């Protein structure tokens, strides 16, 4: 467990929880990233302001690396997957989160915080296949 980072992971988690709290209490929206991104792709019959808050939230995410770098060097993102694996993974994540109505943030953070049984089910499902596919990828294939 040489890579074990409970303090920084907990700290990051507290910030994610803070962000989700701000978004629901001030803006009245769930911080579900997959839903926010997918809604940005919709243009037909969308109400006024449909894109505004979503674009602003995503802009905050996009700029966060630059803001972090103003204070400390950015920790490395080691992306081992090949291009073809990234494409398959991206398609699965995009399609799956829309079919399942959420991802790690919407179901895993907000849904579990709301004690939603749907989100608990979804979280157990994506954790389960996450563990299984990881096992197959690293120890079988």
């Amino acid at each position: 467990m040489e890579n074990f980072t409970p303090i920084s992971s907990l700290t990051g988690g507290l910030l994610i929880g803070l962000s989700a709290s701000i978004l629901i209490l001030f803006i009245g929206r769930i911080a579900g990233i997959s839903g926010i991104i997918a809604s940005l792709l919709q243009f037909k019959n969308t109400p006024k302001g449909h894109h505004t808050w979503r674009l602003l939230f995503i802009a905050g995410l996009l700029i966060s690396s630059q803001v972090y770098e103003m204070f400390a060097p950015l920790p490395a993102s080691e992306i081992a997957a090949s291009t073809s694996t990234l494409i398959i993974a991206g398609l699965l994540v995009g399609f799956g989160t829309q079919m399942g109505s959420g991802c790690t943030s919407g179901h895993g953070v907000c849904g579990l915080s709301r004690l939603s049984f749907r989100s608990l089910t979804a979280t157990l499902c994506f954790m389960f296949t996450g563990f299984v596919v990881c096992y197959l990828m690293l120890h079988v294939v």
Partner: protein
Amino acid sequence: MKNIITFGAGLIFGLGLIISGMTNPSKVIGFLDLAGKWDPSLAFVMLGAIAVAFFAFRRVEAKTLTVFDEPIHLPAKTHLSKELVIGSMLFGAGWALAGFCPGPAIVALGAGYQKAFIFVIAMLLGMAAHEYLYKK
């Protein structure tokens, strides 16, 4: 004012993802690799996030209006469905293959990682494919 708050919330979310280690796919895969040198760190991310958000959602249950007295939008669906189960299972498979879920992928894209760009384009295509197949 609300625009600044929303942008700030996105920024805090992104900083949280960076500090937590979620934007490093190798660390995510280290968390999912129960049979290897398992790194349980990312369980603490969810723990920390829920420890804070839980109280925000308790207030939402008591009062379904925002601080600005505007409606709070909550998911309408309450029943389990096969779409929820199958969709989430597909998502988990993709998450393990790349080590990216949507939030960290967007943050890594912002940091300029070419591989994050490839992943995000494929993710957008996957979302569009679902929209095309199910919502027409």
